[in-house]
């Protein structure tokens, strides 16, 4: 124990503050974070620089302008967009009622539904595509929408989590009991009571599915369909600058989607 007697000189306040036990961002951690930040920024900056560097080192956004002019752009984006729509529609139509049921009346099934929803994490897309090619009827294999049908499975872990969390947060049981007790029929209960409250969760799962479809390469490539990600690979073999511009572009799109997702999540949290 200190045996300082008067006159008492208390150490510099900054030093004392350092002795309190609040964890702080010290120089070591700060350096580590800086290294990681550098590792992530460098490729992006380099790529962006490459994509705007034209002949004779003249900088312009010319490559980005050319993106939409590419001959296949329309078809590829159209296909990817249609796949996304189909995937989102199917996923929502299947998962929302299922997860709602599992929270309401089928609680015993929750474990198994969760398990099945998480299975796609264990089965790599490359193996799934193997199985799909070996088992699906030829009629299905002839349409690109088979991709959408499988994308519903690939997105299941994320959509289940999002909807499960959303329903878990609103105490569905009480809401349903209250509204049923007031005489509302099931359709009203679902449309006017449950759906509005899980709107954020539904949006969340839609954004996650969208991000997945826009970025999925493995299955599309191995099943030989021309979606946006496989098209970027094709362009990459032909013209580097354009391909890099496309890559940056797809990154920006992904970023916008994620920001929309977190904005939606924050609104959900604020309302609760």
């Amino acid at each position, binding site marked *: 124990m200190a045996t300082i007697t008067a006159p008492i000189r208390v150490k510099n306040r900054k030093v004392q503050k350092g002795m309190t036990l609040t964890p702080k961002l010290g120089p070591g951690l700060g350096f580590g974070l800086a290294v990681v930040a550098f590792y992530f920024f460098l490729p992006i900056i380099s790529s962006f620089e490459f994509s705007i560097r034209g002949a004779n080192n003249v900088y312009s956004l010319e490559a980005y302008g050319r993106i939409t002019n590419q001959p296949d752009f329309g078809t590829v984006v159209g296909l990817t967009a249609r796949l996304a729509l189909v995937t989102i529609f199917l996923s929502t139509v299947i998962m929302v009622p299922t997860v709602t049921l599992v929270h309401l009346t089928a609680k015993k099934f929750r474990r198994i539904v969760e398990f099945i929803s998480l299975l796609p994490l264990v089965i790599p897309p490359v*193996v799934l595509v193997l199985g799909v090619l070996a088992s699906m009827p030829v009629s299905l294999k002839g349409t690109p929408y088979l991709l959408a049908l499988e994308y519903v499975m690939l997105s299941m872990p994320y959509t289940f989590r999002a909807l499960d969390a959303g329903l878990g947060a609103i105490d569905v049981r009480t809401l349903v009991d209250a509204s049923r007790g007031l005489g509302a029929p099931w359709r009203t209960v679902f449309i006017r009571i449950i759906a509005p409250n899980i709107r954020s969760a539904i949006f969340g799962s839609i954004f996650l599915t969208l991000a997945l479809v826009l970025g999925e390469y493995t299955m599309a490539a191995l099943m030989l369909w021309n979606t946006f990600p496989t098209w970027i690979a094709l362009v990459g073999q032909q013209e580097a600058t354009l391909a890099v511009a496309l890559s940056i572009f797809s990154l920006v799109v992904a970023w916008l989607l994620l920001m929309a997702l977190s904005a939606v999540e924050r609104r959900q949290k604020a309302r609760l």
Partner: protein
Amino acid sequence: MTSAAMRSTSETTTGGNPGRGSLNGPLRSLRTYIGLFPFFIYSGFFLAIPTLQVMILAFRNQDNGWTLDNVKEAVAGVYLLSFQQSLWLSAISAITGAIFGFIAAYAITVSNIRILRRVIQTASGVFANTGGVPLAFFFIASIGTYGLLTTALKKIGIDLYSGGWTLFTFSGLVLVYLYFQIPLMIIVILPAIDGLRLEWREAAGSLGASKWQFWRYVAIPLLAPAFTGALLLLFANSFAAYATASALTSGTIPLVPLQIGSLVSGNVIADKANLGYALGFGMVVIIGFVMAGYAILQRKTAKWLGN
């Protein structure tokens, strides 16, 4: 904890909630089962059937009889090498990604700068899903032969390529894999780090513990399950990755997903057809074990850090 308790008590009530009007009895259960049909039928058709098909065909030969030949071939020669390389690549990228991801996640939590945390969380979501050709281009543009960093370093006398190293080697692949491994780590470990309560640090401190003692006796034991679980997740993630490896290596480095890919694309002799299924079977078994471990460790983490 309360909601889990509530969930388990309601699970023990037979048939759900008695006294709910037309929802009573067997008719109600039937409605529920019907409601769940779409889910089970869909996942049965589009997930279970393809997967089972792979599992079954792994053990079938050309004449539709049962055989272990495919599996035997899948763990020999170049395919054995592929498994080894895949496992090795996954292990290294997982461990490195886990360490750096932890440092980044801990740094942003401790800094208490909310905007920094928000930005890094969104960024992690984006980068965790980055891969394939775009990712390959990002790296070629920075440390490829004519990359920005490569030329910048050359100007100050450092030649990255002097030792014969290129981006398309094993270590190059690890470096590129970290681009989605580190963000995945950040996403997975942040909740666990948040779960480290300030009260524990303060309690340990006022009881006389030094910073190191706190970490040794409290923080590390508490974070170990989460860290290990995240490590397993990163391992599985790397093991299953196809697009990035395909974009960067074009066959130069043997990896199991690439082998399967080339077998799917038909770059193979006819009688090796079922080999692909055996390889797929192997992948699912390995990833299955790893994910099971992850699930177990997640539960343990939730027990201590979940609240």
